[in-house]
């Protein structure tokens, strides 16, 4: 029973990291109705920035906040400079642009910071842990919940959040009432970049820092976002936690580590076949 609980709880912890990255995907989806395939590589690049700041002597939390700020600006700039030019392009063209961004970030990180694997510190003191969960696992869950509550408050109770939702839902009407739609899109991308950087800094102590660390995580985040409902932040978190626990338990008890990814994905696709909008997603009805 202890072992089972341990597996489930540590699945919850990895799930919270998937959830953070899924939240970043949801941000961009809400703002632009696109799924950002380069989100994982952006998060990886941000984590390298944090690593660099720590190397030059910043205290952890200063580096943490600094990285979030840089990633926010970087995300906004990518939307404003590159993605904004593809507003009228077909979805597949934009997918190719995302693949391009993915290649650029991956290659740049390797070139600037070398491909060697690096250790990344965890900010949480060892005493915080207990028999079931390590300090870092608890901390990662806490950070993710904090990010989620901030987002919910931002979108529900602030005028800016309302403006962002309006811009995503109906750009033309929003423009007519004076919302700067292109800035709202850039803001969405900025938030996604910032949230992604948090996810990166939380997962780096677990998987170690290297330019390819996010490729697997992004897939889980993608699955989590779709499972929970890609237009719903709470759904994304729920999806992330479910995917994390499912992956861990299946790996430990059912099919072994070798095929856990495969089986987890098969289950997710199975769920989506039954409920295409995801667990908490809003169902769109189109008029014929």
């Amino acid at each position, binding site marked *: 029973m202890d072992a089972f609980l341990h597996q489930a709880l540590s699945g919850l912890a990895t799930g919270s990291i998937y959830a953070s990255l899924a939240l970043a995907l949801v941000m961009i989806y809400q703002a632009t109705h696109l799924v950002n395939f380069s989100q994982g590589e952006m998060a990886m690049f941000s984590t390298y920035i944090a690593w660099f700041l720590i190397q030059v002597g910043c205290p952890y939390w200063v580096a943490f906040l600094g990285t979030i700020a840089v990633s926010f600006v970087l995300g906004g700039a990518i939307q404003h400079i590159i993605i904004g030019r593809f507003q009228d*392009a077909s979805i597949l063209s934009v997918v*190719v642009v995302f693949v*391009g961004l993915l*290649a650029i970030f991956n290659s740049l990180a390797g070139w600037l910071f070398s491909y060697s694997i690096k250790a990344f510190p965890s900010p949480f003191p060892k005493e915080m842990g207990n028999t079931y969960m390590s300090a870092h696992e608890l901390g990662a869950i806490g950070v993710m919940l904090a990010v989620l509550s901030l987002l919910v408050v931002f979108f529900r109770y602030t005028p800016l959040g309302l403006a962002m939702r309006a811009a995503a839902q109906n750009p033309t009407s929003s423009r007519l009432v004076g919302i700067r739609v292109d800035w709202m899109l850039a803001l969405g991308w900025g938030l996604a970049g910032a949230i992604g950087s948090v996810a990166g800094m939380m997962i780096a102590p677990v998987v170690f820092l290297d330019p390819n660390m996010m490729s697997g995580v992004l*897939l889980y985040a993608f699955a989590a976002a779709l499972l929970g409902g890609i237009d719903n932040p709470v759904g994304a978190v729920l999806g992330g936690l479910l995917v994390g626990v499912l992956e861990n338990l299946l790996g430990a008890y059912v099919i072994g580590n070798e095929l856990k990814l495969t089986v987890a994905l098969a289950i997710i696709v199975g769920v989506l076949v039954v409920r295409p909008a995801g667990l908490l997603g809003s169902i769109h009805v189109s008029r014929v």
Partner: protein
Amino acid sequence: MSSEEQGPRKIDPVADVVAQTSSGVAAVVPHTWARAELFGTALRAAVFAGLLCALPFTLTNYQVFQVTLVLVYAIALLGLNLLTGYNGQISLGHGAFYAIGAYVAAILMDRYGVPYWLTVPVAGVGCFLVGYLFGFPALRLEGLYLALATFALGVALPQLLKSNFLEPWTGGVQGIVITKPDAPYGLKLNPDQWLYFFTLFFVLIALFLTRNLLRSRIGLAMVAIRDQPIAAEAMGVNTAFYKSLAFGISAMLTGVAGALGAIAVQFVAPDSFTVLLSITLLVGIVIGGLASIPGAMYGAIFIQFVPNVADKISKAAPWAIYGVFLILFMLVLPSGIAGGVRAMSHRFARRRSIQK
């Protein structure tokens, strides 16, 4: 007179839907050929065929091998384009079908001693069945969800190939080594040159089949489903059947390409078929041009050679250069190389008709 002029339209409900809704009408509506134009086309085709035949005798063996790979990718891209370009179903997992084709060929040759030329059609049939069956659950999924499902297939397949369960056939992580076939009938060709012609033969078949398929009832139904699914269904097109069929045919072509690729590379291993291959194929059809047969050729040339060019420009960060290429390409030619070529030839044709 431009070559895009439409012939007299037959009364066919599906063709009507296509003609009213599709942007690619010209590609599916039969042409009426003027005699001079027919002659010009035949002449161009003859010159082109001559060039294709002369090519392997002017290049080094390694270059011949690279061109063979371009032909292999061209078949795979033709398959993916059929599904994504003409039928509107996004696949991020076509590398899986390529891998299945490659493994079918390799296992048949290595374990069962089947001659290499027979493995290619067998791989095609096998992939058709797998694709057709995968098409059924895919019917429920659209857009992003379909992308996820196919992406999952692309990610899962290398893991399955590595698993202990299949190891007696697949050779696990080690993969399978294949010997390169010699030219038959005492032809004075080295193995690389022979494989080039062998692959070219399949490219021609694939082109012929795809072109005719797209002009047939099936092709028109596929395009109609892409553009107006509801209208198509209302006119009696069996959407579910044609969508699964598109998946099957697409997988078949990609599987044939996989088998040819395995014979050309002489080696299959799970790590050659990661999800990166699937993404590369998708990049290939978008850069080459969606819903365009020549686009498959352009895309194949791009994905084979442009990474090398990027590598020449910057040894330190070649993939960053490649990424910049991709973004610039989409900025300059949003409808792919084929779209660019089409726009250019339209402009020339217009200028010529004004001069007349």
